[in-house]
């Protein structure tokens, strides 16, 4: 704390420091007395030397362990209902806030895109990109959504089309009631609403959240020379105080949200993958088996460990590219054997419905559709926001050399189109199966008749040809996506807990990979995954406020930069 006070008393010390060279071409470097790593300690634990930020590393690890222990002590069910209630309370009370915040993020991104600020280049005006478009896009897409698209691609559109629970978007009519299809006009309207409402949750808004965080981090690290850690974004607001406790808190919150987000989705994802394997191979005992899920977590963690040890280019990048190819194959296959022409002709209709309904869907007040608005939209926004430090840090790290306009196009606009294509093909096929087969379809039985969300994708694939091949491909894809997230998440947590150093000893990222697998397994065995997932999503509210401040810091930071 003494540092902090000294800094406040003497803000002008530029005269002492030599002028910093600009990165590549002109940029607006921030002169600060803070030296990266000045708060780091380098303890020697056995044969392992560490290089960690004090106190962010210790507090993050302690808080995470304490949380896990507390949840296990209270019991999975009791804590799940507590945090579930907390999350429910936050999303139903502050739904308007989440929705407004989401709209602000989109508007800020689009504003930057069309304004002269789009001409700023990340890393200085002469910087050149480290990655090709394909490698870059594969990485940001795998980090940003990957696994979610597998889980929700069929589930969400079908759910909105036929939900018997009264939480359809905008309170419009659904397409199938008690197993009876509505008249064709209503069915078509319900289909368009379902697609629009789904694309809304996977389109501009989530990517705008990621883009704000990623662009801010990239700007403050590559152009302004601050450490690559979440606190650096807030330099224009808090000044030198950011190196003290306000910054520690932001970083700890980011580590907490990232690790719990990853560990709980790893645990829940392993259960889903186990159900998928049980379903595909007709082995019912695998589906509900905790042992099978723990084995899957171990496999995923082991693969992530190998990937982490191969580094960014040899690990995450290659995995992301494998993901893109596999996901592309699956998509093309479904498009080919599914209702091809219907899907192709529907695509532009779906995008049109998205753009015409986006105003009604993103309206924060005066709506009746509480189930959809609070239970889905606000939940998603909290979820995306709680993931944004992780995804943002990762995207930032690989985005040096891109212009801001290029960045927003590739992080906001193209992913929105890709999500729309994905939802059109996966959800469109699911809805088409309901329209064709009504209650006979697999998706109807897993989404509407009884709610078994983890089987929705497999139910859809089962009604298409070559189901045994595509289902196995889907399971592999789920696992590889998890390995990718586990790897990139560990890199991010390691960087934050090392005070922004990306070259800390490799043993640290190994620690985080293993720690994440252990947390996921312990929670799976002891119960409490749902509780901690709810807890991590609950960090979405404080982070939403933090991100609104980040918008301001970002625009100010960009305005100070030279343009091409």
């Amino acid at each position, binding site marked *: 704390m003494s540092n902090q006070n000294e800094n406040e008393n003497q803000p002008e010390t530029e005269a002492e420091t030599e002028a*910093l*060279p*600009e*990165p*590549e071409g002109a940029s607006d*470097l921030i002169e600060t007395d803070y*030296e*990266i*790593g*000045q708060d780091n300690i380098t303890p020697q634990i*056995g*044969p*392992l030397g560490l290089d960690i930020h004090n106190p962010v590393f210790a507090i993050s690890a302690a808080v995470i362990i304490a949380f896990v222990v507390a949840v296990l002590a209270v019991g999975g069910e009791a804590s799940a209902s507590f945090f579930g209630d907390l999350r429910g309370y936050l999303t139903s009370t502050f739904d308007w806030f989440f929705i407004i915040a989401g709209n602000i993020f989109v508007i800020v991104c689009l504003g930057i895109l069309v304004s002269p600020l789009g001409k700023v280049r990340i*890393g*200085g005006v002469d910087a050149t990109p*480290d990655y090709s478009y394909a490698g870059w896009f594969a990485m940001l897409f795998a980090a940003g959504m990957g696994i979610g698209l597998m889980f929700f691609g069929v589930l969400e559109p079908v759910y909105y089309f036929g939900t018997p629970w009264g939480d359809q978007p905008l309170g419009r009519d659904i397409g199938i009631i008690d197993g009876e299809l509505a008249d064709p006009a209503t069915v078509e309207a319900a289909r368009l609403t379902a697609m629009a409402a789904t694309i809304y949750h996977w389109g501009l808004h989530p990517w705008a959240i990621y883009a704000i965080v990623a662009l801010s981090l990239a700007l403050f*690290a*590559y152009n302004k*020379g*601050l*450490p*690559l850690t979440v606190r650096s974004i807030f330099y224009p607001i808090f000044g030198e105080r950011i190196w003290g406790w306000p910054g520690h808190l932001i970083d700890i919150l980011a580590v907490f949200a990232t690790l719990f987000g990853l560990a709980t989705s790893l645990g829940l994802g392993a259960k889903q993958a186990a159900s998928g394997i049980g379903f595909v191979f007709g082995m019912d005992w695998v589906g509900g088996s905790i042992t099978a899920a723990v084995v899957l977590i171990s496999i995923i963690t082991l693969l992530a460990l190998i990937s982490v*040890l*191969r*580094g*960014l*280019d*040899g690990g995450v990048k290659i995995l992301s590219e494998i993901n893109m190819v596999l996901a592309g194959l699956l998509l093309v296959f479904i498009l080919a054997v599914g209702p091809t022409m219907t899907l192709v002709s529907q695509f532009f209709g779906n995008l049109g419905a998205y753009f015409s309904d986006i105003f009604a869907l993103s309206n924060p007040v005066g709506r009746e559709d509480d189930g959809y608005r609070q239970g889905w939209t606000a939940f998603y926004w909290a979820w995306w926001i709680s993931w944004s430090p992780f995804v943002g840090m990762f995207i930032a*790290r*690989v985005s*040096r050399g891109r212009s801001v306009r290029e960045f927003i196009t590739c992080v906001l606009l193209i992913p929105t189109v890709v999500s729309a294509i994905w939802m059109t093909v996966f959800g469109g096929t699911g809805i088409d199966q309901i329209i064709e087969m009504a209650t006979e379809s697999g998706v109807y039985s897993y989404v509407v008749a009884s709610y078994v969300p983890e089987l929705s994708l497999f139910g859809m694939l089962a009604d298409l040809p070559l189901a045994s091949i595509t289902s196995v491909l889907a399971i592999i894809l789920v696992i590889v996506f998890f390995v990718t997230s586990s790897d990139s998440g560990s890199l991010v947590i390691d960087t934050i807990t090392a005070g*922004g*150093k*990306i*070259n*800390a*000893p*490799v*043993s640290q990222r190994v620690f985080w990979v293993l720690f994440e697998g252990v947390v996921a397994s312990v929670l799976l065995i002891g119960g409490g995954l749902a509780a901690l997932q709810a807890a991590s999503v609950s960090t979405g509210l404080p982070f939403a406020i933090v991100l609104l401040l980040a918008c301001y810091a970002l625009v100010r930071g960009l305005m100070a930069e030279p343009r091409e």
Partner: protein
Amino acid sequence: MYKQILVPVDLTHVDRLGKALQTAADLSRHYDAPVCYVGVTPETPSPVAHNPKEFAQKLEAFGNRQASEHGITATTRSYSSTDPAIDINKTLKKAVEESGADLVVMASHIPNVTDYIWPSHGGWVAEHSSASVFVVR
């Protein structure tokens, strides 16, 4: 016998390099071979430098100091990487090739159990390049 000596340096821990730097300088004078100091930096800001360009400048200044201190001919090469903790071996190999070095002099840590998981950089370079490698303890 040797025409070009390559010395990898970690600018964060220059204090630990004394022996390796002295060894390199002595060999340089003995064989009349110039020394190339090589450094690998992350592209993100690091404790040493805010960006790769600043790192390159600092490395050059370091090389010049070594040259005048030991009376040798010195050059420097700076490499940046998106993941230096992992890419360091490959980058060193590249530096050996690009500088045409036939002798690498580098400081090493005290070997311990983790070497089974993460082999030393010196060992890797010896295995993967044609240069002789002198690991200084």
